[in-house]
Structure formats: structure tokens, C-alpha cells
């Protein structure tokens, strides 16, 4: 077992350094690139936190959908082939639920501020908590 600080903590430390120390001293193209670097580190931190759990959940759904086991790449390849052949389509509710769940997991890591993701997140909460949740 490796010691702390763990990878998430270290990556966040570097992002904080760029934000607090380097960015204020930068202008123009360099400032722009530093902002992108900070975004990249924040993405890495989110992926480190979520990836294991997300990949497990995605694999379970794929195995159920396809009725067999395999690696994530392998299972996704087979799902793609079935969609391309028309063996599964938009009328398959399980497929649609799987694609939505996987896409939401990806956006939560890639771009949690993306407006369409935020709107769909609110929809999730609405569905989970019923209509009375006004907060």
C-alpha cells in the first residue's frame, strides 16, 4: 500500500499551485493554456475518484444486456456490432437506460459543467425524489 498523499491529493495540489501562483503571473496564450492544464488535472482527479466504480457498473450492465462476460472493450465492441446489425435498437428500453447511465458517468468526469449534463442531472434528481423536491 502506497503512502499518502494519494494521487488525487497530489493532482489537486498541482492544480491549486497553477491556479493560485502561476495563472496570476501569466497573460495571453500562456494564461489560456494554463487554464486548460488546470482543467485537465481536475478531470484526472475526477476520473481517479470515479473510474473504478463506473467501469464496474458499466460492465455489469453490458454483461446483463449481452448475456455474457468479457472485458469492457470487448463488450462495447459487441454492443456496437449488435446496434449496427439492427439486433438492438431504440425500442429496447434496457439499451437506452444503459446508454444514458454510461453517458452520464462519462460526462460527470469529462465535463460536469456542460449545460446539457446539468439539465439531465436535475431530471435524474426529479425522477428519484418525486415532484415535491423543489430545492
Amino acid at each position: 500500500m502506497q503512502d499518502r498523499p494519494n494521487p488525487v491529493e497530489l493532482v489537486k495540489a498541482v492544480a491549486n499551485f497553477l491556479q493560485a501562483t502561476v495563472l496570476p503571473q501569466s497573460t495571453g496564450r500562456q494564461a489560456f493554456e494554463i487554464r486548460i492544464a488546470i482543467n485537465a488535472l481536475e478531470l484526472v482527479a475526477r476520473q481517479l475518484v470515479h473510474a473504478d466504480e463506473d467501469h464496474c457498473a458499466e460492465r455489469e450492465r453490458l454483461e446483463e444486456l449481452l448475456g455474457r462476460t468479457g472485458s469492457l472493450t470487448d463488450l462495447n465492441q459487441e454492443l456496437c456490432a449488435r446496434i449496427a446489425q439492427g439486433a438492438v435498437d431504440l425500442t429496447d428500453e434496457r439499451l437506452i437506460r444503459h446508454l444514458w447511465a454510461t453517458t452520464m458517468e462519462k460526462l460527470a468526469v469529462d465535463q460536469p459543467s456542460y449545460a446539457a449534463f446539468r439539465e439531465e442531472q436535475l431530471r435524474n434528481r426529479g425522477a428519484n425524489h418525486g415532484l415535491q423536491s423543489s430545492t
Partner: protein
Amino acid sequence: MPEQIAQTASVAIREPFESAVNRLVSRRFPGVGQVGNLARLSGGASQETWSFDILDGNDWRRVILRRAPTGYSATFASAGLPTEARLIELAGKSGVPSPRVLHVLRPEDELGDGFLMDYVNGETIPRKILRDALYAEIRPRLAFELGKILARIHAMAGAGLQTLREITAPAAIQELHLAYRADGCPRPVFELAFRWLQGQALLRSEAVTLVHGDFRNGNLIVGPEGVRAVLDWELAHFGDPMEDLGWLCVNSWRFGNIDKPVGGFGQLSELIAGYESAGGRTVDPRRVILWQTLGTLRWGVICLGMLARYESGKDRSIERAMIARRASEAEIDLLRIIAPRA
């Protein structure tokens, strides 16, 4: 052709870029003494945009140079810089806000392919156009105005455009599918979107016109009074005019204003009203949404391509790598169109 490329490439190595610019200016603008502030504005490996100032009498005047370094050939899908220059000239004559083209590069300019045009002052950064108080008055009118501009683009015709390719829906989907497959990573959402689009009879073209190919917030120069210039004709081609209307509505160019489909500015009905008011064909909104869906998929495949660009070593910027992680935004946007949740 290969001989010509080899010859100009060796010239480019021998002559530094800056002195070639100086010689061009002294030839093209006799009496102009000085060139200053030469600066690279943007561009990838194959196309560059530079700005510089020339002293014209007592006034400094800003000029833009678009060029492809010698040895770089345009991709099969791009119009090519000499044709881009021709398109900008034609657009200006057709009532499309455009910069004035000053000079199209010749072999003796030793600068590769490209052209000089007037610098147009104004804003190109989408978020500023969508948020800054300076553009508050024009914003509500932009969807209509962009419709009018698109109608004028789709009516453009003239000599010098023969080299542009023609591509409409079935072939465009097929070409995109090949690019997606080349990436190699399986993406069930894209796969479903391809299936869905292949089954849409309404994507068949009713008319073929000139299509800008990248008409969106980000390729416009805007001032407080309206659009001052339409930029970047690199992807111009002949195709279905609804391609431009749909591309303008792709969620990624709304920059957060997702309830305003037309570039974050306004509603589809306003875009269509502007389009039809300026002589554009009658628009079926369903067809615009189909082209928006195809555009969303196209954006997703473009994002995938960024990874290949990054890995090839041609562009090692973090920006390039991070755009590859935006393919998932196309996935959520596609699902919202083809499999919306209750």
C-alpha cells in the same frame, strides 16, 4: 505537381518567413515603408493566420495573412486557400459581411498558398458575444440576421468554385462513419446515431447549393451593430443548404445557452424567418433538426480525431488532448435528440 511542391518547399527553407512578408508588402503596396507587429494569431499545423501592420502614409493599417506553409497539402475536404480567397470575394459581392481580399499569394511570393485580407475589428470569442453588455442590443436580433446571411451564402454562384466538392447526406454519413471506424474505439451511442440517421428519408437533399460548412459562433466577427464578417471558408462545398442551418444549432456552439438553439442567440423560428426573408428556400424545421443531429455526430467524430492528431505528434498541446475528451458531450446531445428521457 510534386516537382512544384518540392521546389517551393526548398525556397521556404532558404528564405525566412519574415523577410518574405517584407518583400511581398513592398511589391504589393508600393510606397509602404514599414511592416510591424508581425504576430501569429492561430492555426494548426496545416493553416496559419498572421496579422501585421503596414505604415500607409501616416497611418498604420492592419492586414491579415492566411497561409499554408509550403509542402503542406490541403486535406481532401478543404477548399484550399486560393478558393477560400475567391469565396470571400464572392461573399462580399453577395451581401455577406466579409473582409476585403487584398492579394492572393503567387509562387514568386515564396510564402506558400494563401492570401492577404483587411483586418476586421470586432469580437470573435463566442462567450463574449453571448455575455458582454456591449452586444446586448444585437444579441436578440442575431438569429434572424444569421438566417439572412445564410440565405445569401446559399445563393452564391460564380466562376472559380469548380474545385469545390459536392457532398450530400448519404455520402456525408458514410464518410463520417469511415472516420469514426478509423478511430477504433467502440462507441455505442455513435453507432446508434449512425443507424438512426441512415434511416431518415428527410435527409435526402431537395436542393444543392453552396454550403459554408463551418457557419457558427466562433467563425463570426461581431460588433455592437451586428455581424461584421463571416470567416473560415475552409470547409465550403456544394451540398444541402440545411447542413449550415443544422450545424449552427449544434448544442456545442450554444455555450451554455441551451434553450436558444441558434448559436445561443435565439430560436429556430427566428433563423428560419430571417432565411426566408432574404430569399432562402422554405425551410422544414424537421430537416434542420436532422442536420443538427448529423452535425452533432460530426462534432463528436472531430473530437475523436483530436486524439489521433495529438498522438501523431503534429500537435502536442494539452488543448488538443482535452478536446478529445469532449466526444462525450456529443454523446449526451445525441441521446437528448434520438432517445430523450421523459
